[in-house]
Every structure is written in C-alpha cells, then in structure tokens.
C-alpha cells in the first residue's frame, strides 16, 4: 500500500485537534485527582486545577476514605470494596454464562420465537434501569433479597444479559460457519463444535462483553442506592454518595473515593487490552 505522508500543516492541525480532545476528556479527571490530593479541597473556580504547591499535597483524603487509623471504618471500607468486586464479577460471569449459549443459538439456529425474542430484548434496552426500580424493590423484598449481594447480582445480570446477548450474537455471526462445519466433518458434535471452535474464536468478544457487564455493575449507583439500606451492604458508588451531604460536602474524600473506584476498572482495561484488540479469528478463513 502506498502511504501518503501528511504535510506539516496537516500534522499540526491533527495534533491540535487530538490534544484538545484529550484535554477535554482529561480535564474533569485532573480536577478529581487534584481534589483528592489537595489539603484545602479547593473547589473554587480555577481554570487549571493543579495543587497550589508541595505543601498543599496530602494523602489524608485517601486515609479518610479507606479508614486508615480507624479499624472500624477500615473494616467497613474493605467490606464495601469486596461487595463491589463480588457483585461486579458475579454480574459479569452470570451475564456471560447466560448470554453466550443464548447468543450462539440466536446466531446459528432458526426457531419459533427467535425474532420476537430478539425484539423483546431490544425493547428492554429502551427503558432506563431506574424505571424498574420500584418493581425490582418489591420483587427483591418478596424474595428476601433486599440488602444482599445476590439480590443486586440478580438485578444487574437481568439488565446486562440482553445487551450481552446482542453483542455476542454479533460476534458469533461474524465467525464463519465453515469453522464449525469443518469441526463437525472432523468428528465433532454440534456441542463440541461450539465449545472447541466457536467459543475460542469468540473469546475477545466474550472478554469485552464481560468487561462491559463488570463496569456497568461496578459504576451503577441508583439501583444500588435503592436496594441497599445497610451500610455494610453498600457498594462503592453508594459509599461515594455518602460524602455528599445535604448541607456540606466532603469534596476531598469524595474525589479520593472516585479515584479509588476508578483504579480497578483501569487495571482491568490494562490487563485485557491485548484480548480486546486482538482479532483472534484473523487467518482462520481466507483474507
């Protein structure tokens, strides 16, 4: 391929746009990080939110949030962190475990109710989760699952599954049927063809789907705040909200909490980036 070399003006223009876009995206993050690390809190309007100097820097906000030096608070925070991790991981696993075979069936087989089912799932995506908060509360109450991690996982998985099915169905449709047919001619049953060929080929898509389900559960606030009443059952977004009071807000602690909540997601993206980017099916068929 003959690659054209961009001119100087074009390079400058492209880079200006890119720098502006990055600045736009990172500006709020800079605010949060500065707030988290700043003694004074510094919520007053400033163009460039940077700490005022070395003497203004502190980790006190992080200590306050994580409860360093206060065993009871520390234990509570640890429990809340575990809540978030368990709920998010369980949501991701449940969503993927249910959505993967469903998506495969929807991609490969014709059966009665297929189109209606797909439309129905699409329909569920049109309503915001909060619209169902009240019925969900009543259902969980009836099931005695209010204030429990399993109750929250059930709710999150129910909302994550339709989206996951759509995403994975697309992935299975993109995998050539030839691969599974080759496996069946080679001696595989339909189930073996799915497990040994289609599933490994869909691995990047499954990773992305799991990551999305994890993130949506990790970040979700409204349903968690509605369905969880005990402090020890809180997930981190609900904890964060507790720093925003009616009369005063602990902005420093809030920001430190926000930074802490972001770290696992960033770490997950970092670890999964190869899986996310690799086109694992490349080369299996022509092209």
């Amino acid at each position, binding site marked *: 391929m003959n690659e054209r070399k961009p001119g100087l003006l074009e390079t400058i223009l492209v880079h200006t746009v890119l720098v502006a876009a990055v600045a736009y995206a990172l500006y709020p993050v800079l605010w949060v990080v500065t707030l988290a690390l700043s003694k004074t809190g510094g919520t007053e309007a400033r163009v460039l939110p940077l700490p005022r100097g070395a003497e203004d820097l502190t980790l006190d906000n992080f200590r306050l949030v994580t409860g360093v030096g206060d065993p009871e608070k520390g234990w509570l925070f640890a429990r809340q962190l575990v809540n978030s991790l368990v709920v998010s991981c369980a949501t991701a696993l449940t969503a993927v475990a249910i959505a993967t075979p469903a998506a495969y069936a929807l991609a490969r087989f014709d059966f009665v109710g297929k189109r209606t089912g797909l439309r129905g799932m699409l329909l569920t995506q049109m309503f915001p989760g909060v619209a169902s908060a009240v019925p969900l509360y009543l259902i969980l109450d009836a099931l005695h699952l209010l204030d429990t991690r399993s109750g929250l996982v059930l709710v999150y998985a129910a909302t994550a599954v339709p989206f996951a099915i759509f995403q994975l169905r697309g992935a299975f449709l993109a995998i050539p049927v030839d691969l599974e047919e080759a496996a069946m001619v080679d001696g595989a049953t339909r189930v073996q063809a799915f497990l040994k060929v289609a599933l490994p080929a869909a691995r990047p898509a499954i990773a992305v789907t799991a990551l999305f389900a994890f993130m949506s559960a990790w970040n979700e606030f409204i349903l968690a705040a509605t369905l969880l009443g005990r402090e020890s059952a809180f997930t981190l977004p609900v904890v964060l909200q507790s720093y925003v009071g009616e009369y005063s807000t602990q902005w420093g602690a809030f920001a430190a909490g926000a930074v802490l909540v972001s770290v696992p997601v960033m770490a997950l993206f970092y670890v999964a980036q190869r899986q996310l980017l690799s086109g694992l099916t490349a080369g*299996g*068929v022509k092209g």
Partner: protein
Amino acid sequence: MSEAPHRHAGSSALRAAETPVPEPAERKLRCAARGIEKSFGATKILRGVDLEIPEGTFAVLVGPSGCGKSTLLRLVAGLEQADKGTITLAGRDVTNLPPRDRDVAMVFQSYALYPHLTVRENLAFGLKLRGTPAAEIESRIREASAMLGLEKLMDRLPKQLSGGQRQRVAMGRAIVRRPTIFLFDEPLSNLDAALRAEVRVEIRRLHDRLGATTLYVTHDQVEAMTLADSLWVLNGGLVEQKGPPLEIYERPRTKFVATFLGSPQMNLVAGKLSKEGGAFWAEGGGVRTRVDEERFGDALVEGREVTIGVRPHDLCLAKGDAPIVAELKVEIVEALGSEAFAHGWIRSSGPTFVARLDAADARSVRPGSAIPLAAAPSAIHLFDAKTDRALGD
C-alpha cells in the same frame, strides 16, 4: 489407500463417441447418490441427481453458480439433509447420518482452519476427537506434513500463514484423517492464478499418491478438465452430462455443455442442413461447412434447423485450396505469444465469433481486415435448434 490411480482422461475422442460413459464396473463404488432432491424454501436446487464415484476416482462436479454442485457436495458431507434420495459411502447408507459418522474429510473454499489452534493442532483436531492414540496422531501428522512441506510451519497460527500455506494445511487436515472420500469445495478460488496452477497439480499428485477417492467441486472449467477422471456437468439442478473430461469436451451432448467447457467458448450460429452432391452441409449466419456424415448418421435430414458449433481451437486460417468455412471480420487480435485469438463477427448482426490462429499467421492479421477460416468437418458440432441437444447422440 494403496490402489493405483486410474485415469480416463486420455481416452480417444472417437472411441469415446462410440461407447457409453465407461463406468469401471470392476471397481467398487466408493460414493453413490441416488435420486437426490433438495430445495431451500421454494427454490429447487437439486432435481433428482444420481452420482457414482468408483474407488480411486477423481470426480469433479462442475457447473455455473447456482447449479447445485456445492449443495450436492454438502449433502455427501452431511452438512445438509436431502429432501429425497439416498447417499451411500463405501456401501454404507449414510443418508441420515451426521457428518462426524460419515468418515469424510472436506477442504473448504475458505480453508476453515481453526484460528486459535496451531498448524499441528489443526491437523490433530479430528484425530483427537476420534480418540486416535497419540503416537498414531504424531506419525500421521509427520507423514502429512512431510508430504505437504509443512514441517517448518507446525507451530504457527493460521493468521501467520500465506494463502497457499493455509491451503496446504487444509489439505493436510484432510489427509491425516484417511477418510473414505475427500471432498473439495472450490479449494483454489482464493489463490492467485500462478499459485492456483501449482496447487492444482499438487492436488492431483496427492490424489494419485494416496490412491484416494475424491469429489471436487469447481466452477472453473480448466480445473475440471485437468483434474477429473470423471467429470459431472451440472446445470439447473440436474446432471447435464457425465464422463471423462476429454470425451465431454469433444462430444458435448447439449449446447450448454458445449459452451460451458472450453475457453474461449464454442462459436454458435443458427443454420440449416442441406444436401449437395450427395454430401450434407450446414449453412447459416455466414458459415457454410460440410458435416461428418458418419458421426451424425440418421440425424442429418435436409432442411432441418440446427445450431452449428465450432470451437475457436478447431478453426484456422484457410490456406491453399482448403474449403473456406467462414470469413471473419476481425475486430481484435489477442496475441498470447504461442497462439493468438482473433475476435470479430461473420455477419455484423450475428454473434461474436472467435478463431484461434497460429502466432505466425496472426502477425499479418490486422483489426478491420477479413480473414478466411477453415475447419475439418469432424470438428463441426450440430445441435437441434429446438431442444439444444447434440445431433447424433
């Protein structure tokens, strides 16, 4: 596996014309399909096809797109179910068996290599599923990889291979299985022209070496002609003609077969039979030629309307007192070095006409000029104007 390969392709045209399609009765049928019908929705794809492949035969299904050739192959593989008819492999009725129980191996057009497995794992996949002992798997892989020159690629993933290498891995995956029959679904269509010719020879060599039975689907008539022992021309869901390729090329039974096989395709003009001086002539569209009375026999009736066919390769520049069959108004000359093709028309209202010329003769031919063409009466094909069937069959 040890049976010597058997070819019919060399049989002479004359002998072939006199005898029915030679079915080697002494050899067992490895694959047979009887009365196969298949529809997809309202579209009828196969309308009662019979197929017979004796052991050790390289059978090729050829036809235009939509003729049902790939469907027939997939039915033999078990990837589709026939609406009607039976399929037997090595004497066993497999009509209702799933692909894994049919003991067939297939090379797909897309190669269909498992993308997450290395070449070695791709080759071992089918054997592992069938519970073949590890030592046996290893020895079969070694044998196949040596045969195909894959030794250095064994630990690579499919995406790290070139098109030709992927093709060889796909063949290796079939070879290690030692199946009842090898199925090929247009395996060369994704390769460039040079590689295609190379792999074509390779496939035939492997077939001969393994004494394999092969069913090969292609729309490419060069592949069909060069590879087949037994050629099956499909059209509109029916077998239009079957037999050794040269026999079909030289004695096409229908106008469709005549034009489908051969490149450039056979020239056709509408005409009529007449009798002059005790000899039969075919005349029409600016073409006038004597016909082979021995070949067409009783089919020659004065005044009968026919389609006259002559292959470009059977035409030459008329020299000396050779009878002129037609005069070609040349539009374009394609010089290929060893030979040339003159494209033009006989009558401006008629169809385009192509003649093969010797390279030396072609040098003096200019676009716009008119050249006299000659052809031996034995090279003239006649088809009934109404049924499109060949006369004399």
